């Protein structure tokens, strides 16, 4: 019996914790949360911009921004798309790797490499406000 009442007490405490503390609620967040999440995202965008404008992903000194100032003409809203030159549907990350290999003469990144994620965050941020346009050519 003592064991049972302990379990009940624990459950009551748990429920009280959920109700009383926003941190433990799954579906509510505050302005402070939004600000923190924005800061986290923008710090990754900044890392992406730094990579985009630096030669460190290649071997020949060429940077992505040399041909794509402000990541223009990358069209993230159109990916995944049928990349007609490759004959298949690819993601934006695969196209970034194509550019790292060819004009930058570098080694491709894993698609979940934090640097690849950062560059895609930067490209998407520069393209903010543009409607999705799957497969637009």
């Amino acid at each position, binding site marked *: 019996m003592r064991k049972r009442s302990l379990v009940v007490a624990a459950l009551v405490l748990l429920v009280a914790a959920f109700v009383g503390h926003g941190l433990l609620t799954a579906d509510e967040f505050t302005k402070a949360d939004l600000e923190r999440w924005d800061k986290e995202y923008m710090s990754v965008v900044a890392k992406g911009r730094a990579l985009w404008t630096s030669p460190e992903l290649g071997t020949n000194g060429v940077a992505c921004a040399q041909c794509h*100032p402000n990541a223009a003409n990358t069209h993230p809203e159109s990916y995944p798309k049928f990349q007609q030159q490759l004959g298949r549907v690819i993601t934006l990350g695969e196209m970034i790797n194509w550019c790292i290999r060819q004009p930058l003469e570098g080694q491709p990144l894993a698609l979940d490499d934090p640097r690849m994620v950062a560059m895609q965050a930067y490209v998407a941020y*520069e393209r903010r406000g543009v409607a999705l346009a799957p497969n637009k050519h």
Partner: protein
Amino acid sequence: MTDRMSSVDRRSFLKTAGAAAAATTLPISLVELAFADPAQNFTFAYISDAHIQHIAGTRFVRNWDRGLIRAVAETNLLTPAPDFVMFGGDLAQLGTKAELDHGAEMLSKLNAKLYCVMGEHDYYLDLGEYWSKLFGPQHYSFDHKGVHFVVLNSILTTDDWTYKRWPTAEQRMLEMAGLDNPNGSPFMVGEKQRAWLAGDLAKVGKDTPVVVFSHSPIQKIYKGWNFWTDDAEQVQALLKPFKTPTVVYGHVHQIQYNQIDNITFHSVMATAWPWPYPESYAQAKAELNFPKMTVPMNRADPFFERDATGWQTMDVAGGRPTLKYNLYNNTNRVVGFDPRIGMPADSAYQDPAKRIPPQTHY
């Protein structure tokens, strides 16, 4: 083919094949100036924005090297030969002696006389000192077959930015080299050079065709990428008294043309790489002043290394250049002043119904 090959020696076959290839791809981007007397018409070639980029030791970025080597080789194949060749600036990427020397060596293969324009990538390491040793004065004028040509150094900026902002010359160069870098500074011709220009033009009859070569556009298109010259209006004011002034500029790595009052504007292609049209930068739209009459070049296909790069010849007739763009992986374009509409027009695509899907930039 195999039988024929065996009956001709390899050298003469290559020579013929080269000439045949040239016949099908030329003209590239020639500028033609035409006069009432056709005997006065002449052609010159214009190569620009090679961005020769040093890696280390004897290594340079192969892609950009190939663009300039090809433009020089094709210019030398022109028949009849051009009266002279312009180089429109940004020979180097970061203004080093290695880059300028390597570029000068490639340009030295040109058969015709060469005139050069200063670009910001040539300038901001040593403020044009080594470039001037190789190519001479940074602004000057010359007359050719009745046309007054003026070369401006339009990529200067404020003394504060040039002399006081940066701890090293290398950093100053890098800051100006990034097209979209907010730490850059707007280009300008500057008061001193404008005074020189006013004096130079004072000696020229108002009916004389005047053609100005600059690196940056002497008009304001998009400040964010320095498709811009801060004192453009003051320079334009000096050109307006003339009957048919034309400005030809590099820097933008794309086809542009415009008409502001009586001044006609044309851009030239880069041999290195293409740039997006500013309208394709989603955050730029509010501050854009892109010439509405321009039919854009095709969107670049990166899988063709030389696509959306090229060079041009200019046929000079009636004092106004007609640009013939030699586009390596695209149908060539011809843009010239159309007296019926009083502005420049593309010979094939000006009618919106004639445009093709790759000319839409977004």
